[in-house]
C-alpha cells in the first residue's frame, strides 16, 4: 500500500510538470498582457513594469525562474492584487473554498446515498418516481439559476438568511451557498446509488444473506451498501475537485471570498502568476483526491489489492 502510494506520487511529478508548462505558455500566448488597460501606458512605463516582473526575459528563462520559485514554495507576486503575494491569496482563499466545497460534498453524499438507497428499495413505486424526478430536475437546473432563486426566496422575500457575504464562515452565511452547490451533486449521487444498489440487491450474496434470515436492515447496511457505493466512490474524486474548483459561479453570486474567483479574474486580468498559482494548486489537489479515492477503493472492494 505504501509502495503503491509512493509510486503514484512519483508518477504524478511528470503530469504536474506538463500541466505547469502548458499553463505557463498558454497564458502567455493569449493576446493582451497584464499591463494593458484602457489608459494605454507610455512605452517606457510599460517597459519598466515588464522589467520589474521579469517579463522582458526570454520565455525559457522566465519558466526556469518560475520553477525555481515553486521549489521554494513561492508562487510570486500577483500582478493585479498588488498588496499580496499569490501564496497569501491562495492561503486565505483556499480554506474558504474547502469549507464550502467540503460541506457541499458531505451534504450531497449524505442525502444522495440515503435517497438513492430508499429509491432502490422502493423500485418502481411512487416514492421512487418522485425521488428520481426531483433529482432529474436537480441535475437540469444549473446552479446559476438555482442560486438567485434561493436568494430571492430566503433572503429577499422571507429575510431569514443573508443574501451574500461569508461572515467569517458563520452557518447562516454558509447555508444557501452550500445548498446551491450540493443540489446537482445530490441529484447525481442519488441516481448513481439507486442504480448500483438495484444491481447489488439482485446479486447472489444478498440473496444468500436474506435466505439466512438476516433482518433487512442488516442486509442493506452491512452487506449491500458497501459494494453499492463503489461507483459513487469513483465519482467522488472528480466531484470533490469539481465542487471545490467549480464553485466559481456560486462564489461569485454569494460573494464568498474563496479561491474559485481568482481563477476567472486571474485569467481575465492576465494575472499570470495568480493563474499559474491556482492551476498548480488545483493540479496537486486533483491528483491527491484521485489517489485517496483509489486507496478507498481497496478498502471497499476486496477484489482490489495494491
Amino acid at each position, binding site marked *: 500500500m505504501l509502495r503503491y502510494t509512493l509510486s503514484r506520487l512519483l508518477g504524478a511529478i511528470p503530469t504536474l510538470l506538463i500541466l505547469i508548462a502548458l499553463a505557463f505558455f498558454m497564458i502567455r500566448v*493569449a493576446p493582451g498582457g497584464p499591463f494593458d488597460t484602457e489608459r494605454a501606458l507610455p512605452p517606457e*512605463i510599460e517597459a519598466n513594469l515588464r522589467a520589474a516582473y521579469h517579463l522582458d526575459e526570454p520565455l525559457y528563462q522566465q519558466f526556469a525562474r518560475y520553477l525555481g520559485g515553486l521549489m521554494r514554495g513561492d508562487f510570486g507576486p500577483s500582478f493585479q492584487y498588488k498588496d499580496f503575494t499569490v501564496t497569501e491569496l491562495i492561503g486565505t482563499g483556499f480554506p474558504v473554498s474547502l469549507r464550502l466545497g467540503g460541506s457541499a460534498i458531505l451534504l450531497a453524499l449524505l442525502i444522495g446515498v440515503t435517497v438513492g438507497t430508499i429509491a432502490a428499495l422502493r423500485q418502481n413505486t411512487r416514492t421512487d*418516481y418522485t425521488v428520481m424526478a426531483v433529482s432529474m430536475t436537480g441535475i437540469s437546473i444549473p446552479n446559476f439559476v438555482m442560486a438567485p432563486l434561493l*436568494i430571492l426566496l430566503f433572503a*429577499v422575500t422571507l429575510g431569514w438568511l443573508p443574501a*451574500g457575504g461569508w461572515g467569517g464562515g458563520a452557518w447562516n452565511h454558509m447555508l444557501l451557498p452550500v445548498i446551491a452547490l450540493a443540489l446537482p451533486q445530490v441529484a447525481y449521487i442519488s441516481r448513481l446509488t439507486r442504480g448500483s444498489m438495484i444491481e447489488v440487491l439482485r446479486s447472489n450474496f444478498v440473496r444468500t444473506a436474506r435466505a439466512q434470515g438476516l433482518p433487512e436492515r442488516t442486509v442493506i447496511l452491512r452487506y449491500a451498501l458497501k459494494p453499492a457505493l463503489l461507483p459513487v466512490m469513483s465519482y467522488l474524486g472528480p466531484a470533490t475537485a469539481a465542487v471545490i474548483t467549480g464553485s466559481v459561479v456560486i462564489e461569485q453570486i454569494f460573494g464568498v471570498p474563496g479561491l474559485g474567483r481568482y481563477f476567472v479574474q486571474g485569467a481575465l486580468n492576465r494575472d499570470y502568476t495568480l493563474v499559474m498559482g491556482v492551476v498548480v494548486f488545483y493540479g496537486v489537489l486533483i491528483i491527491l483526491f484521485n489517489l485517496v479515492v483509489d486507496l478507498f477503493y481497496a478498502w471497499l472492494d476486496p477484489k482490489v489489492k495494491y
Partner: protein
Amino acid sequence: MIAPLRVLRCLALVAVAVTLMAACGSADGPGGRAAVPIGGESGSELAERQVLRRGNGAEPQSLDPHKSEGVPESNLQRDLYEGLTSSGADGEIVPGVAESWEISEDGLLYTFRLRDNARWSNGDPVTAADFEYSLRRSVDPATLSNYGIILHPILNAADVIAGALPPEELGVRAVDTLTLEITLGAPTPYFLGVLAHSAAFPVHRATVETYGDRWARPGRLVSNGAFQLEDWVVQSHIHLLRNPHYWDADTVRLDEVWYYPIENQSTELQRYRANELDMTYDLPFRQLRWIRDNLPDELVISDYLGVYYYGLNVTREPFQDNPALRQALYLAINRERLTSQVTGAGEIPAYGYVPAVRGYVQQTPEWATWTQAEREAEARQLYAEAGYSVEEPLRLQILYNTHENHRTIAVAISSMWNEVLGIQTELVNEEWKVYLETRRSKQTTQVFRAGWIGDYNDAFSFAELMHSTSAMNDSGWDHAPYDALLARAAAERDPAQRADYLQAAERELLREMPLIPVYFYVTKRVVKPWVGGYRPHIQDYIYSRDLYILKH
C-alpha cells in the same frame, strides 16, 4: 406512470410561486420597519449606529494610492487619504490638506499653505515634506505606478517617469513644514484638479519605508483622510473606522464604513434589497425597469463625466480619407431612440464628444438641431457621395468587448445603419484584453466601441485622447490643425481663451469625425432613504465623510 408528471407539475408550480413571490416582494424588503418614520419625528434625527455599507464593484487592486487606477480603489482611497485639494459637491476645487494657495503670474509656480492641524491616523502631523516625498514616489519608476503619468504637468515629471532624471529633480519642494512649492513645466489650468486625484495623495513615509511593498494592510496602513483602515478580508470586505486625528473629524458623522466588493450587479441589487447594503455601486442594465417600478424613491441617476462612442479606424479602408462616409454613419444613428429604448437609464444623447465639464461650452455640429428625418436624408446623400448604394452596400465590422450592454447597443446601431443606409454589418466581440490589443494595433479594426471617463474635470482630459501622438488614439487620426489647437490651449494662461482653443479643436474633431459620439454616461445606483447627505457628483466622488445615517 402518472406520478412523475404530477411531481413535475408540482415543481413547476413551486417555481412559479417562488418567482411570483419574488416579483411581488415588497419594495422595502424583509425588514420593512415602517413604524419609525425615517429621520424620526423631525426627519433629521440621526441613527444611533452611524455605520454605512457601500457596494464597491471589483476587489481593489491596492490601497496604495500610487499603485492603483480603478474606480473601486479611488472610492476607498478618497475616504482614507486626502490630497492638497479636494473636489466639492459641484465638481469645484475645494481646499484639502492645503488651506490656501497662490499661483504665480506666469501660472508656473504654485505655493501651497498646509493646515497646521492636519494629522495622520497615528497622530503624526502632515507636513510639506510628506507631500514632497509622496509626489516624488508617485512618479518614481521604482514605485511601479501606472497612473503617475497624470502628474505630467509638474516640471520634469515625464523625464522622471521615463527614468531619465532622478525623482529628486521633480518640480516639488518643501519650503518649510507647512509650505510646499510645485513648479510646472507649462501652465495647466486644471492642475488643482489633478491634485485631488489619488496619484497625488500623500503616503506616510515611515510606514512605507518600514514595510516596503506590503505596507497597505490592516495594522500597518497609516492614512490622513477622514477614515482609517481597520480590516481587509480580500474578496469579502474592507472595514474603515473614523480617523480621530483627521483635522475635520468633528464634522464626520459616520463611525464605520464597510466596503463590499461585489462585481455581479444582480447580486449587488439582491443584497441591497435584503438590507445588507445602504448604497450600490451600479445597477444591472436589465432590471432598471423593475427598479423604476418598485424602488422609484431610491433610484438615483445623475450625469457622469464620460462619453460612449464608436471609434473609426481612419488608417484603413473604408474610412481612410473619407469624411463623408464617417459623417453619414454619425447621422444615421438615432440617439434619442437609442438612449430612451435601448440603454434606458437616462443617458444623454451625445452629438458632441466632450461631456459637460467645467468652464467649457459643449460643441455640437449644426446637425444636432435638425430632426432625425433630416439627418437621415443627409446621411443617405453623404453615403451616396462616398460611392455606396443599395446595390453596392458598405460591409462593416463592429468590434466591441464582450459584454451584454455593448452587444445590445451594437445590435441597435447596426440595425439603424442598415435601415437608413443599407449597410451590412458584422458584430465581432472579443474578451477585454484581446479587444484592447486589437484596437491598439489598428490592423483589422473598422468600427470599434469605446468609452472614456475623464480623470479630472476638464475638457483636456478628453481632448488629449485624439492627439496624433496619444497612446489612446486608436482611430489613428493625425490632424495637424487639431494638434496645433491643443498645443495653443496647453500654453494659454487665460481660461476663456484656452477654452476657446479647446472648443475650436472639438469642432475640428466633429467636422472630421474620426469617432462617432453616441451618449454621455450617467451614474446609476440605489441609495437607501436613510442615507443622508448624499449628493450626486459629476465624477461620482461620493466622500463617506459627507454622509450620515438617519434614524430608521
